[in-house]
């Protein structure tokens, strides 16, 4: 049954992707991209990857739609130029697709227990996680502890991307006509005149933040963790900015504070590693953080997940503000 649902959803995915490429209305494309993300998240869930589905849910349907709309408000809504060199592009695409189809016949089929990916390191992680780290969620254990180096790198990538966006959009544009704040995305008033969404939205924000904390600290036991929680916190602040205006949201969580948050995350993460070094272990080897190695692992995972969450929150909200406030200074 699961296989058939997956096949059904995969077919839907192809149809949506074709529609996205075909339409010249960029707003419609952004909406369809949201549907694409919903569908693919459902496939991730069905294929035993609930952590990924949670991330894709928060990122794809929420933040990325908001960013696309913010960018569309600053650029143009319709594609103007016709596709150039369509035949050549089609020829290239069809050739590569044929090659990929040909190689697919050598791949293990979906769910094959004897596939090479399941035979080498994966069983080791599944077997040793309860012994070394003792958290139920193997994904969190691998992400935060066994492969902590990689996640440190990813956190720095997120931080760097945030810095890049601030470099590009942080300063007021030179020689551009100023737009009144009422006419920028979320600008001065946001949706203040829409009373019903405003009341309901304001009611929901505390619960969203509470849920984000649950996702953050329950990440050892179920799907969740710093990345997902950070995105959900960012989404709640974006919701506030949409309802009350971007300027009001800035008053609550100032740009300076956001920069501090974005920088604090990688620092917390990095210094956890240094603390491990000073206590006589290897970099990011949390076992030395406490007298009991398993307890030390728990502590280390908690701290670095918090660091990841802080970075993602700070960076995503900064990015949203950069797009929303562009041109209105």
């Amino acid at each position, binding site marked *: 049954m699961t296989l058939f649902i997956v096949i059904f959803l995969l077919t839907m995915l192809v149809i949506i*992707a074709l529609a996205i490429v075909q339409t010249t209305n960029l707003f419609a494309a952004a909406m369809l991209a949201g549907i694409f993300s919903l569908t693919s998240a459902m496939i991730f869930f069905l294929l035993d990857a609930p952590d990924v589905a949670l991330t894709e849910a928060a990122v794809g349907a929420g933040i990325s739609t908001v960013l696309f709309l913010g960018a569309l408000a600053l650029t143009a809504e319709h594609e103007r130029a016709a596709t150039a060199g369509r035949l050549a592009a089609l020829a290239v695409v069809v050739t590569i697709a044929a090659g990929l189809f040909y190689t697919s016949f050598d791949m293990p089929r979906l769910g094959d227990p004897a596939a090479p990916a399941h035979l080498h390191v994966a069983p080791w992680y599944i077997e040793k996680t309860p012994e070394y780290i003792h958290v139920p969620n193997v994904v969190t254990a691998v992400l935060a502890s066994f492969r902590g180096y990689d996640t440190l790198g990813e956190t720095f990538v997120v931080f760097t991307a945030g810095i890049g966006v601030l470099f590009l959009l942080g300063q007021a544009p030179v020689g551009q006509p100023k737009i009144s704040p009422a006419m920028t995305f979320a600008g001065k008033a946001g949706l203040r005149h829409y009373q019903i969404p405003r009341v309901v939205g304001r009611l929901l924000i505390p619960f969203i933040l509470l849920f984000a904390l649950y996702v953050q600290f329950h990440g050892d036991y179920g799907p969740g963790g710093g990345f997902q929680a950070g995105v959900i916190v960012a989404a709640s602040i974006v919701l506030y900015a949409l309802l009350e205006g971007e300027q009001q949201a800035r008053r609550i969580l100032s740009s300076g504070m956001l920069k501090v948050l974005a920088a604090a995350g990688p620092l917390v993460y990095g210094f956890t590693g240094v603390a491990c070094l000073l206590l006589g272990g290897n970099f990011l080897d949390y076992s030395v953080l406490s007298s009991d190695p398993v307890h030390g692992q728990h502590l280390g995972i908690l701290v670095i997940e918090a660091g990841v969450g802080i970075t993602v929150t700070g960076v995503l909200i900064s990015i949203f503000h950069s797009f929303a406030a562009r041109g209105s200074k």
Partner: protein
Amino acid sequence: MELLGLYNYWVFAILLMIGFYAVIAKPNLIKKLIGLSIFQSAVFLLYITIGPIENGTAPIFHESVAGRAISNPLPSVLILTAIVVGISTLALGLAIIVRIKEADGAVEENEIRELDRQ
């Protein structure tokens, strides 16, 4: 039945190529970015479809898991971080497009090229 098990790779190939087509053939820069994110999703899909084991369950231990096969956690780990990095890079790309629009007044590749020629 045997062939249906390969369906995910075919969808991967098709999605990858749809995204690639948008990147190389569409002159609109935002459309190119959407194409790029489809391309990215195709790669996510390939990794995730490697993960599950038949009759297995997600790699999160719980009382309901006892005795069931556990699916591979590694693709999840890789793709989880890749999604968040993906949104960061998407934001960077959109920021660059906004700056291009401000500098040239256009987001279509051919128009920008003409402006460069002048």
